[in-house]
């Protein structure tokens, strides 16, 4: 069983905030890196959810939103639309964490997708630092 605490997203967010004070030519290159990373994480989350015989249908409900002017990505199942109406992602809690009587909880921890993408994100940001 993997240790899922190996990647601290907080540090990356702090670093992204610091980058907002960098020269504009560098700042402009951050959002594409974030978007590329979000796309990779989403793809892995969809693949893992889609591989589940019980919860595979929920894979289509996994999306991402780009926030903070492109410096933050929020990735995961969407459970309700902007009007609060339930959409396809409802049930993802059960898929990841299980139900009240123990069923479910069989889809890999989403932290694993973040951990897998972290080295690529770190390399891309290191390249940006090299341009400072």
């Amino acid at each position, binding site marked *: 069983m*993997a240790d*899922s605490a190996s990647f601290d997203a907080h540090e990356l967010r702090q670093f992204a905030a610091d980058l907002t004070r960098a020269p504009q030519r560098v700042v402009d290159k951050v959002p594409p890196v974030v978007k590329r990373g979000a796309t990779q994480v989403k793809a892995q989350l969809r693949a893992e959810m889609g591989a589940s015989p019980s919860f595979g249908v929920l894979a289509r409900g996994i999306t991402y939103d780009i926030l903070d002017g492109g410096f933050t990505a929020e990735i995961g199942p969407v459970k309700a639309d902007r009007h609060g109406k339930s959409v396809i992602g409802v049930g993802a809690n059960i898929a990841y*964490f299980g139900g*009240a*009587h*123990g069923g479910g909880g069989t889809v890999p921890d989403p932290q694993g997708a973040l951990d897998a993408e972290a080295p690529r994100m770190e390399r891309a940001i290191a390249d940006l630092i090299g341009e400072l």
Partner: protein
Amino acid sequence: MRAEFEALCAAIETGTGRAAHLVTAPPSAGTCYYLVSPAGATRGEDLPLSDVSSVWDGLVRIKAVSPSPAGAMADLAEVRAVLFPGGVVGYLDVEGRAVTLVFVRHEADYTEAVTVVTTNTPLALSVDSIRMVSVPDGTEDES
């Protein structure tokens, strides 16, 4: 591994006064209890076996189940106080093993889509992840 999980359930039951079930809750569990499971496991018979002398280091989910979301969150907070009295690290008494618990993060609060027939109220869950490291007595954990 089973001994560690049973010790974890026992510690929760002793500290909170509520039942703690390993992986699955029986139909008679009622509406207010805890579930403890390795992350990714679904049934008791799927619990991996390991040699008694081996080191085990894994993510564990603790779920508080209650009729109300507020109740589930409060019950889970009570477990944190029991398992991690000094902050984020705690210990379990298991014969022949040195077991360390580390709080990882709070995962989610949600209401199950299934209703309870007797009350017609959806059960609410509050979920924490903790890391459990178990090593045989007399060895050092090098992680």
